[in-house]
């Protein structure tokens, strides 16, 4: 039982050493970061917001509002379609529950009316009997729309928060209609809140083709007053890849650099565009990724729709500029500049290009991301000042060090330098494994998380205690040193596993139901229990087996 094959011993040692290597950057002072490879030095545990300071928001999207707005548009379009097909109706109302009802004058026209409604949007569902028609979106369409609204909001939030220059914001969906936004390092949230619901600027401009041609891809030295120089998205991404430092400088420049300054200083790919705005993003109704028909080649394309005013200006502009490029500018970047193939009238159009389906998805999202699709209400807010976080780190560290010291003291006192030492070494390795695990998983350490670590320390010697007490009993029953150790391990194993697994159940459920810092507690506690199963049953066994083989003691000093 105690005997371990050599390869297992080596495997255990290698595993432990690797874990130590992973945990090491957490302990090293930051001053030696420059000497280490970057990927390794960055392998640190994320500190939760409660420790490093920052703001945590839970935002709720007003999906009812979105639906109502959408249905009002549907009602308008349906009214127009019905008039066009000369279907008479008495009443057409938008219900507060996201339905539109229409009452026809002539029941016989029902089929025509339904056809007209389907022409507005094929995903509309019609119900009811007689002269009344109830119009709503299918449940699938509603789910799709809801997901789209949240995805779009997340994308916009990311752009807005990035703009404030903060590092590593967390923006994730929570449940059906919520978004969790965590911004480390900020104390005054007024500015951030103001940014959240700001509209991104989306505009369509013509490319100054003469200037582009004459400068031959390079930067024109003199710009006419009607023209502006704007970097393209591709160009910025290429710059980011080739010269991350320059990209950082652009991000952190204060005051912010104008597009032209960026072009002149860093030379990303830029385009000269006319300043005159053809259509603004406020006139864009929708944009989605789709495919051309098979006859046309089946390529992925982006289709978009304008409102009436936008449609008219767009139609006029495209009619006079066939063969020229139309730049789509979003917040000081040209996201794409497709060539106008034909006049685009009728309020909708498509953008073709050498897109992959995924790119069209992204572009459509960016096009839509002019404005937030829904009002976001802050329903939970937690802000922690950086100095408060530093206090918490200090308190947590002191508690952890004192707690660990006390536990080690008791283990030494009860089981002596040898066995107490083994248990304490196992506890140390256990802590190392938890730190390594958290670094690798990218889990955040919170203040309750530190409490979880301290608790792990207290509980992690339990398995050793179980085993040692059992060994003592076996020894008292007159067994030999080897016999007592072997029997002790074997008999204690069931209790060790059962007691850890039950505690683990509590930890995992706590993780499932908890949020924020509590989740941090559950993470470190559960991880601690898991790694503890390794240290208690395998690691200490290896220590003892090696020691037994080396010293071959007749008597155990336990």
């Amino acid at each position, binding site marked *: 039982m105690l005997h371990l094959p050599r390869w297992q011993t080596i495997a255990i040692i290698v595993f432990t050493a690797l874990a130590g290597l992973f945990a090491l950057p957490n302990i090293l002072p930051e001053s030696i970061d420059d000497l280490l490879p970057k990927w390794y030095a960055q392998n640190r545990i994320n500190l939760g917001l409660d420790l490093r300071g920052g703001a945590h928001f*839970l935002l709720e999207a007003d999906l009812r509002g979105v639906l109502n707005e959408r249905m009002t548009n549907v009602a308008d379009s349906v009214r127009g379609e019905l008039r066009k097909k000369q279907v008479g109706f008495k009443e057409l109302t938008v219900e507060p529950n996201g339905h539109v009802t229409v009452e026809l004058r002539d029941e016989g026209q029902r089929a025509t009316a339904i056809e007209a409604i389907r022409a507005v949007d094929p995903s509309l569902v019609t119900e009811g009997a007689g002269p009344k028609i109830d119009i709503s979106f299918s449940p699938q369409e509603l789910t799709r729309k809801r997901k789209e609204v949240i995805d779009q909001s997340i994308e916009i939030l990311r752009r807005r928060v990035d703009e404030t220059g903060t590092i590593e914001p967390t923006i994730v969906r929570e449940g059906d209609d919520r978004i969790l936004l965590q911004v480390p390092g900020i104390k005054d949230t*007024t500015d951030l*809140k103001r940014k959240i*619901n*700001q*509209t991104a600027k989306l505009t369509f401009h013509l490319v100054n083709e003469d200037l582009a041609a004459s400068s031959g891809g390079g930067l024109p030295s003199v710009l006419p007053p009607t023209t502006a120089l704007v970097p393209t998205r591709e160009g910025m991404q290429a710059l980011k890849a080739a010269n991350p430092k320059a990209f950082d400088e652009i991000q952190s420049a204060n005051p912010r650099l104008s597009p032209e300054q960026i072009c002149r200083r860093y030379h990303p790919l830029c385009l000269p565009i006319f300043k005159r705005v053809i259509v603004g993003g406020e006139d864009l109704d929708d944009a989605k990724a789709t495919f051309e028909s098979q006859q046309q080649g089946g390529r992925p394309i982006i289709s978009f729709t304008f409102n009436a005013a936008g449609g008219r200006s767009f139609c006029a502009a495209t009619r006079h500029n066939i063969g020229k490029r139309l730049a789509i500018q979003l917040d000081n970047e040209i996201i794409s500049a497709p060539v106008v193939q034909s006049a685009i009238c009728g309020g909708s159009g498509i953008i073709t290009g050498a897109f992959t389906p995924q790119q069209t998805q992204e572009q459509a999202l960016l096009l839509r991301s002019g404005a*937030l699709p829904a*009002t*976001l*209400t*802050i*329903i*939970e*807010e*937690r802000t*922690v*000042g950086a100095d*408060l976080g530093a*206090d*918490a780190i200090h*308190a947590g560290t002191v*508690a*952890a060090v*004192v*707690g660990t010291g*006390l*536990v080690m003291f*008791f283990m*030494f*006192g*009860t089981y*002596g*330098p040898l066995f107490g030492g083994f248990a304490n070494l196992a506890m140390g390795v256990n802590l190392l494994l938890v730190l390594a695990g958290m670094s690798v998983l990218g889990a955040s350490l919170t*203040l309750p998380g*530190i*409490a979880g670590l*301290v*608790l792990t*320390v*207290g*509980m992690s010697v*339990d398995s050793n*205690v*179980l085993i040692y*007490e059992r060994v003592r*009993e076996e020894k008292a029953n007159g067994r030999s040193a080897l016999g007592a150790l072997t029997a002790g391990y074997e008999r204690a194993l*069931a*209790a060790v596993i*059962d*007691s850890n697994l*039950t*505690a683990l159940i*509590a930890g995992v*459920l*706590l993780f*499932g*139901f908890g949020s924020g*810092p*509590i989740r941090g*507690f559950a993470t470190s506690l559960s991880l601690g229990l898991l790694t503890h199963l390794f240290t208690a049953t395998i690691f200490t066994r290896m220590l003892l087996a090696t020691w037994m083989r080396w010293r071959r003691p007749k008597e155990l000093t336990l």
Partner: protein
Amino acid sequence: MLWKPHHIVPAHTKIDFMGHRLWALGLSTLINVLSLVGVFVFGLNFGIDFEGGIAIQVRAKQGTIQLDELRHTTGALGIGEVSLQEFGDKSSALIRVQRQEGNAACVAHADAVMKRRVGNGWSVKPGAEGTGDVVFTAPGQLDAAGWRDAVSRVGLTVLERELPRANTNTAKIDMTPEQRAEWCQQVAIKVVDDAISDKYDIRGTESVGPKVGSELMHTGIIAVLATLAAIAIYMWFRFEWQFGVGALISMLHDVISTIGIFVLFRIDFSLTALAAVLTIAGYSINDTVVVFDRVRENMRRYKKLGLVDVLNLSINETLSRTVMTSITVFVAVLALVIFGGPVLYSFSIAMLWGVIVGTYSSIWIACAGLVYLKLRPEQFRHEDEGAKAKA
């Protein structure tokens, strides 16, 4: 001295634990009943996580905090119930403000904040009765961007398309009463900030709106019940059903009496406290499993011995481990209580109690429970034969 092993508990104790089980059961029942009565009569001191509301941590810019003066200042703000407590050291305090309901008073506060922060000439008035609408009036004409900036000064974020596009000097913001209630938390934070910022630094704020509060409460209750159920089911699969029930009762006992501690000392019952309760359940079961494991083993070994004797024997045999582990966990948690800081205080206090009660309950509740659940050695025979057949 340190360098020689010590036996904290003598090797062969023969304490008659089960002999005192009636006393213990009586005491536990009393404590549990009192805890439940306490919850219903006095109620738990819910933190803002569950109740909704605002918590602001402040530190005096100079000297120690004057709680009386601060209480007087914040109490007179008209934002409902405000409670204060020292938090950590003498110069820090925690200000708790009750959940804001989004009534007319909140709009009046927004009006005052607007006048103070943006300038005279501004006014904020409630909109039509029955809606949550709010009407802003500016001293001059503003465009959409100006409006957005203005309303954000009172913590309101709205979509540009909901703001007037043309230049005007009034803007009606459409809100449901629920949305206004959520927004009013922001207003109250600004009211407190304005009132105390000349003497105090705000170190951290938390606000939980009415909606999230009730949801957290709901998921919290589910979390506790699910945890208890999952552990009991695990025990039932690994042991006989009586052990599962015994473990469940002892966990319930620990959870209820811990809640009693929260009632008795008026400790904040927050999300962290809930985490403590769940951890206690986990620790308690950890302890119980070890004793149960030995009970099962001894029942197989000593078939002739009565249940009470087997229980006594098993508890005594595992006693030194029980004491030792309780000590290590206790000192670790004690370090948290003393050094962990005010944020972890309620959590650590609860845990400290949990260590004691968890150890107690695994002996006197879980094991004594087995006696009344009529666990009989015969029930092990079947499994025993199975084991023999395998061998």
